[in-house]
């Protein structure tokens, strides 16, 4: 999968995943603690630049991967920006009818949703940084040794494998339909899509049956397969860098708080 390939050849691929996770989690925490828009924008930008710097020749599809949760975030923030009621109050700065209801907003709602957007964006960028710098195998091993329930990590690993199988099946079926001029006439293309989907569904069931048999042939007992990984060791330098990064983010938050209260009554816009 392309994200894993990007992670394996990234600049920070060799850095201990636990350190990266600590820094990224601190970044997410700092974003939620940041009091104003300026600090949130700074943190979101810093994480995006860090994620981009870390990747070596990323493909365009990597940014599709990044943009998917952002679309979700935009949709969520829109819900925060707008209020829905039978009639708009006189203080509403914008309103429009939605069937028999009115969707309305005012500056306070918009300000809140923008702040929420940048906080969410910081989180997405921090996770994007981890995804682009940590191969899945290292991530699993680290999670399994960090007290994360092994069965949960195991499900994650199996899902990752099955996403690969599913993508291959989807691609193969789509190619088979295209090779026989499927989807060439829009009137019949819905039927091709139905074949494609039902084929995928049946294929998934058959694959599950075969996998179950393959598990049985190797004494499959439901045991998790991650316990045998060697325990990761962290160097002093890795922990030092992680600590500095965490402190830097919290200094930014505290500085933002201080400047905000000094110059704008708690708000820098």
């Amino acid at each position, binding site marked *: *999968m392309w994200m*894993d*390939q990007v992670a*394996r050849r990234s600049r920070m691929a060799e850095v201990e995943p636990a350190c990266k996770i600590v820094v990224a989690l601190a970044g997410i925490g700092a974003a939620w603690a940041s009091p104003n828009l300026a600090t949130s924008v700074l943190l979101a930008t810093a994480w995006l630049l860090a994620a981009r710097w870390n990747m070596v020749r990323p493909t365009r599809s990597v940014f599709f991967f990044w943009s998917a949760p952002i679309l979700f975030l935009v949709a969520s923030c829109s819900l925060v920006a707008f209020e829905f009621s039978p009639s708009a109050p006189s203080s509403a700065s914008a309103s429009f009818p939605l069937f028999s209801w009115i969707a309305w907003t005012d500056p306070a709602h918009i300000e809140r949703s923008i702040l929420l957007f940048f906080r969410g964006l910081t989180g997405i960028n921090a996770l994007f940084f981890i995804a682009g710098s940590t*191969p*899945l*195998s*290292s991530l*699993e091993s680290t999670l399994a040794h960090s007290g994360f329930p092994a069965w949960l990590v195991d499900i994650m*690993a*199996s899902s*990752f*494998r099955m996403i*690969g*199988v599913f*993508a*291959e099946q989807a691609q193969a079926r789509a190619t088979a339909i295209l090779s026989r001029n499927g989807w060439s006439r829009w009137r019949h293309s819905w039927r091709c899509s139905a074949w494609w989907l039902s084929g995928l569904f049946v294929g998934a069931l058959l*694959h599950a049956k*075969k*996998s179950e*048999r*393959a*598990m*049985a*042939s*190797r*004494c*499959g*007992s439901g*045991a*998790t*397969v*991650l*316990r*045998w990984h*060697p325990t990761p060791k962290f160097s002093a330098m890795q922990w030092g860098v992680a600590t500095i990064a965490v402190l830097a983010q919290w200094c930014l938050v505290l500085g933002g708080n201080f400047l905000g209260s000094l110059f704008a009554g708690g708000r820098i816009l």
Partner: protein
Amino acid sequence: MSFSLKWENVRYRYPGADFQAVNGVSLQVESGEKIALLGSNGAGKSTLLQMGNGLIRPDSGTILKNGIPIGYSTKKLRELRADTGFLFQETDAQLLTATVEEDVAFGPCNLGWNREKIAAAVENSLAICHCSLLAARPVHELSSGQRKRVAIAGVIAMNPQIILADEPLAHLDALGSDAVLDVFDTLTKRGIGFLIATHNLHLVQSWFDSAAVLHDGKLLAFGPAKEIAKNHDLLSRAQLLSRHGLGL
């Protein structure tokens, strides 16, 4: 001590089928032996192999491990499957986890080995299959040949005495087939026995010690591989020679 697995007059009919998939077959494979299981599509090869791993329980007849009938309790099946590795034709279904080393560790983890023993088995199996460099790679990034070798590594990590393989060279080019056969050669030298279902008569002549010919669920013949592969009457009867010159 030599290990043996014996099918004794086994029969099996799939639920709802109106014919016997395996009909009174007796066969034995021992450590270090290389036996080919020849037969046309639907001859009963895969069913017979799966019986050897306890995946299918015969309707009648017995499977004997070292002369003792196998049991079908969870414990007995685990013991049987630790001794008889099974290599499926469709590698994709066999590779279950996200990365190569995890997949190879799957069997040993199920056997309840300790961490050091599992790590050693994973490392050793990957080295035998020339897959050490692939250890951390996600499975779906591998080529067909690499996947096949990883599947073999997953099987041999459990330290089996016999490997039952269902057309292991299917979908592989000459180079990929050579790589798999090299691994099999290494394992044979270590005393592992092979029972391999195949259609490839060239391979039967050049690599195997003996061959069994199945047709319509029955055992037509068993003997030295070279003799079987030259017996055109027998091969025609088993529908292994094509009218277009395929086969030999």
